[in-house]
């Protein structure tokens, strides 16, 4: 029988969203202030691990975008790679970033850099969450067998 920690369960839901929101803020401000895709992705991993500790790795996996850590990581790499493609339209080499209109707040501008950093964010989140969930799963299986 699984032991439940009521306080943790109650705190998990708001905490999960707060950590995710913070990770996205860190991702977006990264271009001008400390932050960026790598750190943001790591913070998001912490949120996923929190969920896995409380509700189990399967539930945490389900909460991920795309529903699986592996798919999230693959999509991240794909997004980062695709962000370099529009450069070809303007006759520039691969991954020459293009800058669009300002979003009107916090110095944010629409750009392929943002897509690239989002790809980094997703790849880090997916890959490290995949490792963590896999390890927790092995660990739970071991505990069950005892």
């Amino acid at each position, binding site marked *: 029988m699984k032991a439940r920690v009521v306080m943790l369960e109650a705190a998990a839901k708001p905490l999960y969203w707060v950590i995710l929101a913070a990770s996205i803020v860190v991702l977006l401000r990264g271009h001008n202030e400390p932050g960026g895709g790598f750190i943001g992705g790591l913070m998001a991993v912490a949120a996923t691990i929190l969920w896995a*500790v409380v509700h189990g790795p399967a539930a945490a996996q389900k909460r991920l975008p795309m529903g699986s850590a592996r798919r999230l990581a693959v999509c991240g790499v794909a997004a980062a790679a695709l962000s370099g493609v529009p450069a070809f339209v303007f006759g520039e080499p691969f991954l020459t970033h293009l800058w669009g209109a300002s979003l009107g707040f916090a110095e944010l501008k629409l750009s392929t850099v943002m897509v690239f950093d989002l790809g980094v964010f997703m790849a880090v989140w997916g890959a490290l969450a995949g490792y*963590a969930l896999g390890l927790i799963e092995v660990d739970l299986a071991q505990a069950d067998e005892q």
Partner: protein
Amino acid sequence: MAPPATTHSAHAMSLGARTLAVLPPVVALAAVLWVLATQALPLDLVWSWAPSLGLDLAFRIDGLAALMLLMITGIGVAVFVYAAGYLAGDPNQKRLFVLLTLFMLAMIGCVTADHLLVLFMFWEATSLTSFLLVGYFHTTAAARKAAQQALLVTGSGGLALLAGLIVLGQVAGNWRISELVAIVPTLPHTPALTTALVLIMIGAFTKSAQFPFHFWLPNAMAAPTPVSAYLHSATMVKLGVYLLARLDPAFGEWALWEWTLKLVGSLTAAWGMVLALRERDLKRILAWSTVATLGTLVMLVGLRGEGAAAAVGALLLAHGLYKAPLFFVAGNIDHGAGTRVIDRLGGLRKQMPWTAAAALLAGVSMAGLPLSFGYIVKDVILDAKNTADIFTFAQIANTAFGAVAVAVAGVAAVRVFWRHPGINESCEAHECGPALVGPPLVLALLGIGLGLFPFFAQDLIVAATVSMIPADEFELARLSLSLGPVLGSLAVTLGIGALIYAFWDPLHQRLESIALGIGRVGMASQYEHALAMLPRVAASVTRSLQHGRLPGYVLLAGTAVTALIGAALIGAADTLALPAWQWPGLGLAGAAALTALGALLALTVSDRLVLLLIVGLIGYGSALIFVFAGAPDVAFTQFTVETVFVIVAASVLLKLKRMGRARSVREPWLRPGAMAMSIAFGAVTAALVLVVAALPFDPALSDYFGRVSVPEAFGRNVVNVVLVDFRALDTLGEIAVVMLSLLAAMTLLSAARDHVRPRKAPRSKP
């Protein structure tokens, strides 16, 4: 290898699909003919690929390339048609056509490439597709073994070739083959260039099955017959010869080059012929005679003079035109009579008249009888040998080669079809369909046709010769039906050949006993030994290095790092200095104290969970150091990583503890070896940091990025701008590695999970 019994499964290709599959070589042949008819040779095609690396997709079609292209696509058409009939109904036939098409494209790329690295790329592609084609009947162990052998031998040769090409390109400062052949003769004979030459020769010798790498070719006969005809007689094994001929103008004046080619070529020709006499399997007999022909070609490349170059071109063409049909014939006999062992075959002309006709025509050309292209080639070769100063061994080897070629032609074309040895078990043999008799007949007829009207081949051979010799102009004596001195030499060859043919069986028995002795020390058994050694060496290395004891790993890694850095520091001791003393700020000192405190505490604790928290403290301490050292980004990352790490590890440890398996760390209080290593490691690292801090700091890079970050990439966070913009390609590679490592780890993780908790299988009650 006989094709599996024809069972028409749902995967078998329909007649229409098979017709469609034959299109690629037809289109390729048409394109080659169109180019030859409309364009002036040599034709250069260059696309820029990676200009910063000096890497261009450079292609060049000259006479030699045109000759190879015609053989690749022309014999390719015959092979594809033959394959459509030979493997009709085979469920994997589609795969065969895909692989054959890929192989053909790789060959076309290889013989037209004008850039050393482009050539190598296609060269490797032919090795890989050949591996898959030899292993086509992958359910049989012999085919898998033969494919592995072919790949290992030609693949290792490919590595040698790559090294040789790179050295050549570096030394000459030019990668274009058409320019290299003019540059290399002017270069001094440095050791580097000699190394390149030797490595390139090794690569060519493995590909063209030259002694001592000859053994893989007959074993590759495990491939389906169309593959053997295409790869192992007409095209791929000629690549080595092609490369040698291509580079001959560059290295031709080197004594090492000339004598190695002559010696290895003659040895291969002689040895291949001896081994052909040993075999009873028709296909393997043909394979050994192919080895002998390749040896002759290599020897001819080694000979000086235009005559030798013309002989190379002519023999390349003639061999393709008679050996491919003979392979088809062997396949037809296998198909129709169910065996290729010559003892059980005889008198097949009644049951297989068309195949017999094709065999006879091809055999005439192989034996070099008048009115065949083989005869013309004999004439050209004789000419080359008369003009070049050829040493006696090569002369004898070549005569023996001619004689045994006659005997092999006799076996393949006469013995199995006309003579009846009395133990014929193939009374139920039957003729094959038009797709199986058409290709050998057409190719063999071409060989005869060129013998009757040699001027059709004249321009092609002349063009090929011009690209093999340094001179611009060259007059080839007309290829013609002369009945001069060649007849005398032919008579000698024919006489010896007829004797070998007549006494094939007694010779075979005599050789068998000798060859058994040689077999024990020969290259094939050396290969087996090496292959068996590989896993044993790997296992013992793994056992001694990856023993699974973590303290052992740390000790080994720490000692290695200490020794390397220590040696470097001591070596450069007189140029290094310590920095001036500086009082640290209060924050920095506090952070350092925190880290040191954590390290000291870690020594006193034996509970794993507490130890983990203390390690976290050390991590936070070093993150604080970054905060005060002006690297907030790094500090931010460090804090996050430390937190995540401590949470994950703690959750695992808590689980283990609940299971009662979290033993505390039980180590002896003092381990002298580990202590000595730790102190040395700490001292060396501290010394390194101090010395590096004393070095003058070159601010060029950080100044540059600090300056251009905002105007060019619109970001003030320089670290992030470098990551996502200036060095975005590196970052893309890094996240791809992270993602791929997860994909690799997932199989391990799920295996570990299933190991402790086997997947719930449907229960079967006993």
